């Protein structure tokens, strides 16, 4: 069976943030993938990926072992993995390639896993949701099933550091996915700038004012209607930053939407079905505009 055929069923690695603080992303994903004929297989007993920042810095062996354990759940059930979070994607793909390339490392990980009746064998492919939508579902299929489009909604994409690697084409595919559903991409001067998540662990003020605030100001100045992203960590950072920075004289109110929410709305979902009202920074205006579009 080819990878493409196999990926019509996919084991979702939701990560920590989506099920706990951004449930609307999970709902939108489930809605969208069902409409796109992709069957989700649950990854029960998954742990945190673990995060590629602090966990990896402080204990690289533990980081590798836990990630290897998560991947082994898919290996053992003969599934491929898909993740929406850039951080999870980074951890899982990095560990997967390390374990594939270095038999000593995979042996170390498996020595731990076998105590729990588990084994990493490197048989699963790890997809970013961008790849799943763009390559596996395919651009033509997506075009053919959308009920309504964004009608030129001005979208400022937040790519996230981890998909801006030299050899990655995820940025290009992300842009294509936005235009595919009728969004107008607003490029900003600071689109490469990090949202501030890693710096938050070290210096929260720096992360807020030198990263998130700089970006939010720039996006507001560029006249974008919303920020569109995949990474739940970037989304959380922006919404929290907007709340922290908003004063009587300076309101941000920039809607931060996951691409999958926009996609679900374009595929016919009702806002209450996916829970867009749960955003910390209201998204009603943007959602209202999408609903009015044909």
């Amino acid at each position, binding site marked *: 069976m080819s990878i493409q055929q196999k990926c019509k069923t996919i084991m979702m690695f939701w990560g920590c943030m989506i099920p706990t603080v951004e449930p609307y992303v999970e709902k939108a994903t489930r809605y969208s993938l069902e409409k796109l004929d992709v069957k989700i297989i649950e990854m029960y007993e998954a742990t945190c990926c673990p995060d590629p920042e602090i966990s990896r810095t402080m204990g690289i062996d533990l980081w590798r072992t836990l990630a290897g354990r998560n991947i082994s759940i898919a290996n053992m059930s003969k599934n491929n993995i898909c993740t929406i979070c850039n951080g999870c994607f980074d951890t899982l793909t990095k560990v997967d390639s390390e374990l594939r390339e270095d038999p000593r490392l995979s042996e170390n990980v498996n020595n731990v896993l076998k105590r729990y009746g588990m084994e990493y064998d490197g048989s699963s492919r790890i997809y970013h949701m961008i790849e799943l939508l763009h390559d596996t579902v395919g651009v033509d299929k997506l075009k053919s099933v959308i009920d309504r489009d964004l009608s030129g909604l001005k979208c400022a994409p937040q790519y996230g550091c981890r998909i*801006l690697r*030299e050899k990655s084409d995820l940025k290009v595919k992300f842009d294509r996915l936005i235009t595919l559903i009728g969004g107008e991409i607003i490029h900003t001067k600071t689109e490469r700038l*990090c949202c501030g998540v890693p*710096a938050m662990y070290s210096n929260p003020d720096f992360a807020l004012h030198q990263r998130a605030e700089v970006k939010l100001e720039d996006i507001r100045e560029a006249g974008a209607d919303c920020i569109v992203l995949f990474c739940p960590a970037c989304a959380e950072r922006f919404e929290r930053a907007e709340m922290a920075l908003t004063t009587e004289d300076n309101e941000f109110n920039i809607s931060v939407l996951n691409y999958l929410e926009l996609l679900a709305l374009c595929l016919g979902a009702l806002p209450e079905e996916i829970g867009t009202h749960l955003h910390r920074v209201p998204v009603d205006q943007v959602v209202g505009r999408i609903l009015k579009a044909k």
Partner: protein
Amino acid sequence: MSKVNPTQEVIVFDPEKCTGCTYCMIACTFKHHQSTDFERSFIRIIDDPESPKVRFIAIHCAHCDDPYCLASCPVEAIVKDVESGLVKFNTNRCIGCMACQIACPISNPRFDRERRVMLKCDFCDGDPQCVKFCTTGALQKMMREEARKEFPKRLGGE
């Protein structure tokens, strides 16, 4: 006699790839100080908002062929390792006079207030954590000769 060691490894920074995530600084600080306070990092990412294309500049030790810091040290606390080419600080000898910081073209050595000595990049024994943890590949480790060929290309030359 030339002091250039063509096989010496150095850290090379590509400003067009940097997103300013500061992860290199966190990884460096944790490796050397077991802390995440990136103010103590041996690599510093400097932000220049007026220059959007190359917004960030990384300031890090170049382990120079002919180090100014070494020449300026009054107590011979700095040596250039012949084999690896790395410029190393002996903190047992250092008196914290900061002459090395003044002499360095990029003022890289830093005075550590806790230990009262000068500190700088030690190349993490050949496995620099800043390079290892860089999210976008903006920091790379390469041979000095290779880096010398790479640089004119990045500046728009052949």
